[in-house]
């Protein structure tokens, strides 16, 4: 890695003692010698292991659940179903007033994705819990499922989630989050070329080294300590407090050393049910995802579809951009309504375009609920935008890097969401990339600056 101090030197003082110094991490000796304690390194006498019985169907009504054989299985201590969870229907963003509550801790009458938690088994050993799980008898009536976002949005599609009533999240702005600037149709009409293209991604896994999990210990004073690898301590505590209808002062969360998160540990999934198990049995409880659960049960990054329509002039100026983004939330909201909205705030990318129209939809389908991941709401949009930029440049016969200089945002430019640009540095990054990659561009682009409209 090289620091190129010549850029923006006038905006920076390099006279600090500790900041800017490559100090060694105080935690690396522990990490590399295996001495760092992660949550799963704790082992309490009498600790129970929690395993979930999960839905084998993408969409089904639950006619009945029979746990009579399970409770007799050697080593099984407690079996939990929906009726044991005090506030079973929840949604995590209710903490910032983004509702409705739309997800069950344990399925109640219905499952909406393959892998949804139905019954929780607490046993003396992992093996006993696993064996007992096979003895749960659930009578399902399989329902039609919908997996494709376009199908889900058509009239008459099976409703994925009755708490929403339609297969998209209803924002205060309607069926999508909207951004409007200028007159995009007039922009297309006056453009030399118009190019409309669609981009698609598939869900991906965070793939942390350490899978999601927690260990809960009753403290004997009606308080419970939850050792967890969550990325957000109070966010998880406060949601657990709502789900369990327990005052927050009964809960003590300890964490802060995590073997990789990447956004996969900001859902509140393992902690509430493990705390409930500890409360109802009076014993410590461990609930740790297997690698299979981490990959297919924990939220992935959403699949997205992005349709971009651009109007561009022969001289390289983009005069209009219309983006329609679809985020596949899966069966439940989790963080997805926020991610789709974040996308609306990100488009049309780091370019100054006078006419912009953005619609972003959060769509429900019968698949594993998606949620936050590194680059949430932005990564797939950037893929689509930057491939589109390449196509536009080639369409008008211009070098792709020079084409970006022509459109790059600079200080003071008005963004589509009506904030003036501050602290821009795209131009300088491209100038340095031109040099580092030996990708020549015309001198006029190398003398541009993010500071002013100059050049």
């Amino acid at each position, binding site marked *: *890695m*090289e*620091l*190129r*101090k010549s850029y923006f030197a006038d905006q*920076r003082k390099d006279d600090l*003692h500790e*900041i*800017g*110094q*490559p*100090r060694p*991490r*105080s*935690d690396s000796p522990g990490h590399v010698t295996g001495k760092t304690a992660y949550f799963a390194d704790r082992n309490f006498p009498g600790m129970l292991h929690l395993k979930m019985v999960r839905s084998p169907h993408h969409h089904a009504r639950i006619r009945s659940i029979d746990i009579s054989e399970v409770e007799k299985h050697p080593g099984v201590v407690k079996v939990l179903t929906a009726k044991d969870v005090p506030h079973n229907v929840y949604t995590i963003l209710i903490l*910032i007033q983004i509702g409705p509550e739309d997800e069950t801790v344990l399925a109640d009458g219905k499952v909406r994705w393959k892998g949804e938690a139905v019954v929780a088994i607490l046993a003396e050993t992992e093996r006993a819990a696993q064996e007992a799980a096979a003895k749960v008898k659930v009578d399902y009536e399989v329902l039609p499922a919908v*997996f494709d976002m376009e199908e889900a949005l058509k009239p008459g599609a099976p409703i994925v989630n009755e708490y929403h009533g339609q297969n998209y999240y209803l924002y205060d*702005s309607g069926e999508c*989050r*909207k951004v*409007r*600037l200028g007159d995009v149709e007039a922009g297309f009409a006056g453009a030399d070329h118009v190019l409309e293209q669609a*981009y698609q991604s*598939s869900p*991906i896994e965070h*793939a942390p080294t350490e899978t999601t999990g927690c260990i809960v210990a009753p403290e004997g004073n009606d308080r419970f300590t939850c050792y967890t690898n*969550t*990325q957000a*301590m109070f966010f998880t*505590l406060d949601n657990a407090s709502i789900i369990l209808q327990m005052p927050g002062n009964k809960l003590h969360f300890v964490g*802060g050393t995590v073997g990789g*998160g990447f956004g996969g*540990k*900001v859902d509140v999934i393992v902690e509430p049910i493990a705390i409930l198990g500890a409360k109802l049995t009076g014993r410590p409880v461990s609930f740790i995802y297997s690698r299979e659960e981490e*990959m*297919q049960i924990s939220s992935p990054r959403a699949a997205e579809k992005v349709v971009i329509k651009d109007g561009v002039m022969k001289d390289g100026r983009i005069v209009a951009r219309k983006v329609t983004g679809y985020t596949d939330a899966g069966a439940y909201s989790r963080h997805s309504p*926020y991610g789709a909205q974040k996308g*609306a*705030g990100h488009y049309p990318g*780091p370019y100054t375009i006078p006419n912009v129209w953005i619609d972003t939809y959060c769509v429900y389908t019968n698949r*594993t609920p998606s949620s936050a991941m*590194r680059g949430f709401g*932005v990564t797939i949009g*950037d*893929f689509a935008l930057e*491939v589109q930029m390449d196509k536009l440049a080639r369409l008008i016969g211009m070098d792709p*890097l020079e084409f*970006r200089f022509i459109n790059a945002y600079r200080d003071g430019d008005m963004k*589509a*969401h*009506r904030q003036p640009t501050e602290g*821009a540095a*795209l131009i*300088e*990054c*491209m100038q*340095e*990339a031109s040099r*580092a*990659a030996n990708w020549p561009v015309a001198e006029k682009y190398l003398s541009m600056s993010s500071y002013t409209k100059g050049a």
Partner: protein
Amino acid sequence: MAIRRGRGVAAINYPTGMNLGGDPTQALVHSTPTGNFMVTLSSVDLGQGMKQIMAQICAETIGVPTDRVVVDTADTDTGPHCMGTFASRGTHRAGNAVIQAAREARQVMLEVAAEELEVNASDLETDGQGNILVKGAPQRSISIFDVALSAHFKRGRSISGRGMFLIPRSYPEKETGAMKPSTCYAHACTVAEVEVDDETGEVTVLTVKNVFEIGRALNPKLVEQQLVGGSWMGISHALYETTEPYYPNRDHGGTDFNQYLMPGPGDLAETEIIVLERPSADGPYGAKGPGEMCANPQIPAVANAVFDAVGVRIDTLPITPERILRALKAQAGAPN
């Protein structure tokens, strides 16, 4: 049939934080009797080095070496509220809270030193080595060790401070979408060079040259580990990863690292990282959040490089050999 070479470019920006939900983080700082400093938080270190960075920020602000600062974090019985570690917000939000807390603690520390040295607190400065000096007369000084002892056992002062950083929530306007979704933006430009085997559809990423503008590299070594890891993750996202290979079909999802594909050590591209620093107006010592954006530009850069190499557009992620071969066949006019 041949190995074909191509290169592609992508340029991006990335927002710091989550203003669309309200974005608070708090910190507490206090001194021990011997002049070491404790930072108490509830922020989570995901392995990126959050604790180390908070220690350096506190040390810089108080005016002591970093090894005199201990960070105690992520215990809800002791640490004040933090929204969480996500949205590239950890360093920016918690760092600002630590600065505010450390400034308040520093002020008490200077007041105690002023009493000991019989000068005004405003006439004092720290040397960054653990001493407090009279400006212009550095021979008149006192160690922070002695100041802390005095505060605890003689003067009855608590050398401590409270920090709170809140970005108020921005509500998007319904019709226009007017909003303030972020405070500051990091930037990047990546050039990727690939080889594509037009017989097998396999892509080899030869080099990625990444230029990242991140506000300020508070600790260049930690920045490097995050940016290199992110660059690798971007390539992996572009070419390999998915839990649903035939999305929207739900079948064939991988359940372990044998089935869920990621590049191994032999698949890593030659990676170059160049960092620019344009300090953000509201970041701790100018820092922005580089944690997420560093994994984004490689994806379109690789996609564009594949087109440059073989002349087909793969607009669906991941860009698998199967998709490339199908596109090459379609281009040649053969049935899929």
